[in-house]
Structure formats: structure tokens, C-alpha cells
């Protein structure tokens, strides 16, 4: 087999994100489908307003959370396929040189979709297990007639089967287009080097500044992931704390859990990838006498401002989302509590974020310091 089990195990991040997406979507969509069944039993105008708001909430939460998570999964999957092709260019080049067609090589990439399947199954199962509790919470509010979770085959198809097939096809198609490059390009691993002359190419900056910029530019996708990680942390923690009066504790807990899992998962994946892809650069810097601080500063330091920007965007996003929910979705609901920007949540989130982020960066700079200068000579 072209792609081994060890390679698939590295796709753990995709499984986690898919699991979160499947969990949220199953829970809210299942509830929405069930609530449609009791619509005729709602007789009061207040009940109808609540019904409409509940259906809208389900759609918004499943749409935004599910949509964001699916978009993240697409980016993650493409990132992993690209990474695999970049790091196995020689093997793939040899296969092509031997006469294997692009499609016959690319079709093996269907296994990348297994990570989506695993995540979706676990997420669906977790949601199914949690569903009775979730329904009890809703029933206890006594807004609608009592409901019990029903099984819907369509959800199994939409949450497990279709995404799995979609991501398997996506992996194969993306691999097909990536592998289409000339055999020599794959063998020499030159296909990733771009020669775009930018302003910074012409500027006269110190080497470490240039390296910091070049590290960011060479892997823009990692810039996105680091920013996204901070965005998730900021948006989900603040949203969870700001929702005390707007939603149940279970909902707050779910949001903060998903936010933290996504944030740390993408951050660990991104920073590991940054360090791994710069192994030779770090080794050469050490050979030449650059200090540990200079090495980690130039390789990791550029991501710090990106994460701050992600945090600020996350703060604005969660405020706007809750504002829209309160002012638009629940506009007709009489007992809706007042909603204001939660500065306390911002302070707690910002301090926790800074502490966690700096600690993780410190751990990774320790990893860099432990890297042997001999690593470049052992090729």
C-alpha cells in the first residue's frame, strides 16, 4: 500500500474536527427534525414564537458551527494531502517514472477520507448518547410538548456517509492534480519553491527578519491555522461565558469544549509542522552559530502577531454573532435578557490565551533547542 497506517494516524486532527462537526450537527438537526413533528401541537402565539426561534437557532448553530468545521476539515485535508505529496515526492516520482498513471497513484489517497469517517462516526455516536440529556434539558424548560429523540436515517447519510464519500473524492482529486507535475519535479522536490519576487526580497533587512518573513510566506496555510486557532479560542471561550443568561449550561460547556479542542488541536498541528518543515534551516543556523533564542525567535516568532489578530477577530465575531442572535433571531421573544459586550469574559479569555499560547511556544522553542545539528548530515 502506498499510504501506511502511520500516515493515516497523523490525520488525528481531521478526525477531531469532524467529530466536533458531527456532534453539533447531529444534536441540533435531530432536535430540529423532531420539533417539526410537534409543530401542530403548539397552540399559543408565544409557543409559536419560541418554536420559530428554536428552529432558527438549530439552523444557525448547525450551519455556522457545522459549516466552519467542515470548511476547516477541507483545509486540513488538503494540507495533509499536500504535505504527504511534498514529503514523499521522490517515492511518487519513482512510481510515475516506472509507468504508473497519475490516477492509479492518486486513487490510493482515498484512505485520507477514513479519518473523516472515523471522526463522523464518533461524533454521531457521542451525540446519540448525549441526546436524551439534551432533550431532557429542553423538556424541563416546558416550552413545548414533551419530546423524545427519534432516529433519522437521513442524518446518518448526511452526517456520516456523504461527508466520507465527499472527502475521499476530494483527497483523490486534489492528489491527482498535485501529482500531475513532471516526474523530475517530484524527484527533485522542486515543485514547492516559488520564485515570486516580493517587496521584502528587495529590502535590506537583517537576516533574522527576512527569515521570519520567509517562514510565514513559505507556508501560508500554517498562518491561517495559527490565526484560526486563536480565533477559535477567543470566540468560543468568550461566547461560552457570555451565554450564561442566553442559553443552558450544557450549551456553554459544549461550545467551550469544542472551542478548546479545535484551538489546541490546530495550534499543535501547525507548530509541529512549522518546526518539522524548518528542521534543516534550524540545523544550519545552529551550525553557523545562531543562538537558540535567535533560532526559535525567527522560526516561531512571526506567528505571535498572527495569533493576536486571530484573537481580536474571534472577539468581534462572537460579539456580532450573539448580537445577531439576540436582535434578529430572538427579536420577538419577550423574556429575552439584555445582552452587552462581556469585558470580564474578554479579560479572562485574553489572560488565559496569553499564558497558554506563550507556554506552548516555549515548549516548541525547547524542542528546537533539542534538535541536533547533525540532523542535516543524516540524510
Amino acid at each position, binding site marked *: 500500500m502506498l499510504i501506511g497506517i502511520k500516515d493515516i494516524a497523523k490525520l488525528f486532527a481531521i478526525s477531531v474536527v469532524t467529530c466536533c462537526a458531527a456532534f453539533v450537527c447531529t444534536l441540533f438537526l435531530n432536535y430540529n427534525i423532531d420539533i417539526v413533528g410537534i409543530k401542530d401541537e403548539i397552540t399559543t402565539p408565544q409557543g409559536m414564537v419560541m418554536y420559530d426561534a428554536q428552529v432558527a437557532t438549530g439552523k444557525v448553530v448547525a450551519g455556522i458551527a457545522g459549516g466552519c468545521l467542515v470548511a476547516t476539515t477541507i483545509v486540513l485535508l488538503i494540507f495533509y494531502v499536500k504535505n504527504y505529496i511534498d514529503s514523499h515526492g521522490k517515492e511518487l516520482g519513482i512510481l510515475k517514472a516506472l509507468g504508473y498513471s497519475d490516477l492509479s497513484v492518486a486513487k490510493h489517497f482515498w484512505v485520507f477520507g477514513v479519518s473523516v469517517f472515523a471522526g463522523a462516526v464518533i461524533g454521531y455516536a457521542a451525540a446519540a448518547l448525549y441526546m436524551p440529556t439534551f432533550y431532557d434539558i429542553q423538556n424541563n424548560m416546558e416550552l413545548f410538548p414533551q419530546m423524545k429523540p427519534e432516529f433519522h436515517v437521513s442524518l446518518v447519510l448526511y452526517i456520516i456517509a456523504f461527508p466520507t464519500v465527499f472527502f475521499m473524492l476530494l483527497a483523490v482529486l486534489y492528489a491527482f492534480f498535485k501529482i500531475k507535475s513532471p516526474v523530475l519535479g517530484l524527484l*527533485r522536490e*522542486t515543485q514547492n*519553491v516559488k*520564485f515570486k*519576487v516580493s517587496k521584502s*526580497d528587495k529590502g535590506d533587512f*537583517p*537576516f*533574522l527578519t*527576512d*527569515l521570519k518573513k*520567509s*517562514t510565514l*510566506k*513559505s507556508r501560508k496555510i500554517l498562518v491561517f491555522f495559527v490565526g484560526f486557532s486563536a480565533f477559535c479560542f477567543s470566540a468560543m471561550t468568550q461566547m461560552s461565558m457570555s451565554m450564561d443568561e442566553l442559553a443552558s449550561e450544557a450549551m456553554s460547556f459544549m461550545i467551550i469544549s469544542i472551542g478548546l479542542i479545535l484551538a489546541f488541536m490546530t495550534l499543535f498541528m501547525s507548530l509541529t509542522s512549522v518546526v518539522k518543515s524548518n528542521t*534543516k*534551516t534550524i540545523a*544550519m*543556523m*545552529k*551550525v*553557523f*552559530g*545562531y*543562538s*537558540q533564542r535567535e533560532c526559535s525567535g525567527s522560526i516561531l516568532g512571526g506567528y505571535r502577531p498572527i495569533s493576536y489578530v486571530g484573537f481580536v477577530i474571534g472577539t468581534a465575531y462572537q460579539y456580532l454573532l450573539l448580537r445577531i442572535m439576540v436582535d434578529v433571531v430572538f427579536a420577538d421573544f419577550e423574556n429575552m435578557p439584555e445582552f452587552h459586550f462581556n469585558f470580564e469574559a474578554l479579560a479572562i479569555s485574553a489572560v488565559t490565551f496569553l499564558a497558554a499560547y506563550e507556554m506552548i511556544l516555549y515548549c516548541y522553542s525547547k524542542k528546537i533547542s533539542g534538535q541536533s*545539528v*547533525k540532523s*542535516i*548530515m543524516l*540524510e
Partner: protein
Amino acid sequence: MIEAKEITKFYGKGESRFQVLKNISIKINDGDFTVILGASGSGKSTLLNTLSSLERPDSGSIFYDERDITTFSESELTKLRRDNIGFIFQQYYLLPNMNVDKNVKMGADLSGNKNYRSVIEAVGLGGKLRKYPSELSGGEQQRVSVARALAKNPKVLFLDEPTGALDEETGRQVLDYICALQNEYGFTIVMVTHNLNIAEMADTVIKMNSGKISEIYANETRKTAYEIGW
């Protein structure tokens, strides 16, 4: 002066443990061109890595101007390399995402050398400052790595088979550049090679075999890169 006293080095563990360097003692004078000559597996690259502080010996001492670097901490070794040593490897190891100018600046910035572009001119790449490594030929890439090493104004230049991946003409060119620059700047050269002809360019030749020094001799006259066979 660099002096190694009774250095030994082992690789592997348990039954697969074997001795790569067996009680090596040598002296390398300032400004000398020393070649470490030997077949594959003779221990010559390990000796170079040990002398240049990239690896620590298991026993013995290495003195740089009477300071025993085997007692140095990692940060002291980093400073030693920063202030004194330049490296050129067979595989160049240029930074792929940085152009020629920035690759050379990597060395230049360590010594505050603002005139590093004169070194790029000296190796004949003045017109290719904005080119990336993958846009250059093997010989040109090696000349960039020569410029990068020399731009930091090293006192000692360590070279590990610098012409190993080059054809004859390009190999001669690179060696010629290095020697011309040594004449100008006066740094010490320690070069590892398996090519007997290249050894004729050196002041001193250290021949290695199975982890031991089999012979040390001085050449009466140094030949140029264009006078030696290949």
C-alpha cells in the same frame, strides 16, 4: 591553532557499538590549508565534525588557542562557531526559500559584515543576487555556500567534500575561489576529501584509515586547482 589530543569517538550501542575515531592527535596551524584524506568510512568526516564542534568526542581534548572546547557548554560552542568557524558541505544546504543575497546574509549578519556583497562578487555571482537556490546550477549553489561561509569572516573554514557533487570544471572553479579568498583573507582551511589529487593543493595532508591516522605529511609546494589531476 587547533590541537586535538587523543580523541576517540564511538557510534552505536551494545553489540553494534563501534569506534570511529581511535586516539587521534593532530595540530593545525593558523593560516594552513589542511586536507583530511581517506576512503569512505575511514572516519574523516567524523574527525572534521569533532574538530569543528558539531560533535563532541567521547574522550580526549580539542584546543582552540589553548582553550579546551570539550569542556564548553552548548551555548559556548555556539558562540565559538559564531565567532570563528565557517562551514561548507557537499550538499550545500542553502535555505530554499531565500535568494542568493539572503543566503549569504545568513553568514554576514553574524559578524556584522556589511560588505558581504563583495564576497558574492568574488565568487562570480554578482549578477544572481535575486536567484533562488533551485534556479542555480550545482556549481553556483556551492559558490553561494562558499560566499555564505566566508561572509562571516571565519578564522577557520571547514569543508566536507565540497566538490563531491560537482563536475570537474565546476569543482576546479570552486576550489580556485576558495584558495584565492584564503590568500586574500588568510583564514585556516580544514578540508575533508577522498580525492588524492585535491590533497596536492594543501600545506598538510592527514591520511586516515579505519579511524586512525595512517600518515601526516607536508607538501613542498601547493598546487593550484588547475594544476592538479582530477
